[in-house]
């Protein structure tokens, strides 16, 4: 800690992990070794870019192959990816900031998670904690990658990310969590929204959404749902 005196007995909290700066800082986060053809982030994790045509091609292939089961496949893939993402996020955060992620303040955790999404080009994430005490977390994703690419759909297009959110938070908390998309920009909404909560509690959310229940009413309905935790 520095000894800069602010007032008697008060010093800069320069020992705090926030003083380490932003892991995802633009210009530093990723670097490409063009000789090897390898891009890594500043902690050594290998990254690659997936173009629009690749993502759309992958989506079309799964829809063509799996038909009505495609959403379940996206969700399942997303859950696995989300679980791996959570482990990497935990590892990189603790490596960079020198502290286990469980010791992060909620605001620091959120700040880093939002950066993870934006610097990887997945969209601008906003986590709404308004319903946190009721056991629900709301994620809002603007410029969501899949919805932006699909453009128009009659069903939410970000099921992969619903799986990712579910797998990510389930892994970090050790709870049986799931996530369901409630609005999608490809269906005309202003943002893609997701509700995250205990799996049995979210059991009816997809049916409500498909019946035309809006996001706010789904959250209100969920406030009445009680499950054994």
């Amino acid at each position, binding site marked *: 800690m520095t000894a800069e005196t602010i007032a008697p007995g008060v010093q800069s909290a320069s020992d705090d992990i926030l003083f380490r700066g932003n892991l995802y800082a*633009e210009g530093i986060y990723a670097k490409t070794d063009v000789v090897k053809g390898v891009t890594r982030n500043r902690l050594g994790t290998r990254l690659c870019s997936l173009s629009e045509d690749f993502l759309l091609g992958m989506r079309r292939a799964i829809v063509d192959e799996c038909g009505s089961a495609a959403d379940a496949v996206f969700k399942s893939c997303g859950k696995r990816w989300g679980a791996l993402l959570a482990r990497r996020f935990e590892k990189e955060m603790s490596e960079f900031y020198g502290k286990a992620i469980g010791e992060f303040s909620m605001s620091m955790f959120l700040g880093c998670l939002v950066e993870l999404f934006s610097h990887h080009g997945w969209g601008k994430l906003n986590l709404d904690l308004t319903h946190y005490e009721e056991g629900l977390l709301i994620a809002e994703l603007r410029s969501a990658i899949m919805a932006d690419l699909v453009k128009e759909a009659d069903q939410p297009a970000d099921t992969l990310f619903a799986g990712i959110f579910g797998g990510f938070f389930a892994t970090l908390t050790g709870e049986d969590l799931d996530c369901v998309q409630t609005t999608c920009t490809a269906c005309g909404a202003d943002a893609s929204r997701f509700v995250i909560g205990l799996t049995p509690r979210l059991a009816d959310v997809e049916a409500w959404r498909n019946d035309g229940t809006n996001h706010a009413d789904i959250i209100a309905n969920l406030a009445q749902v009680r499950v054994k935790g």
Partner: protein
Amino acid sequence: MYSRMMQIINASDSRYLTAQEQEQVMAYCASMPKRFQVSRLVEQKETEIVNQVIAELKKRYANFPNLHDRAWEKGFRDLQLVLRYIVQGMLMDDLDMAADKLLYWFRTIVASAGMTPRFMRDTYTLLRDASKQKLPPDAYQMLETHLNRTIEIMADIPEPYKPAV
């Protein structure tokens, strides 16, 4: 996020720099001693500047320490960090640098800790005003646009669900 030098180099891909571009590079290089001088001045005055901001915030937001652990210590740290990135942006003549590297991340963190847009505007306006008071006019002038941009970015947060200021 590109400094002026990189913008010029990138714009000249596959060719030599024009005379006008060379002049721009020379002008930027010639400005470096002054930029480093301003950086050293801010470094020397950092504690004074931040102290002044904290002192004023203490008057305006007396309840703040009751709502946050080590509130003013963290406030001091936050202002130090922001000021240092503002200086980096000034050194590189890049108005986006502080935002891309620090401010957007930092803004998410403070917003979720219950800071209000008003609190943020007050804090970073005070940072600008303290810098103006503590630095020579020509040094302040080199930071002014960066300080103003910082106010706009940091105050652009939603009203919190549970204000904590």
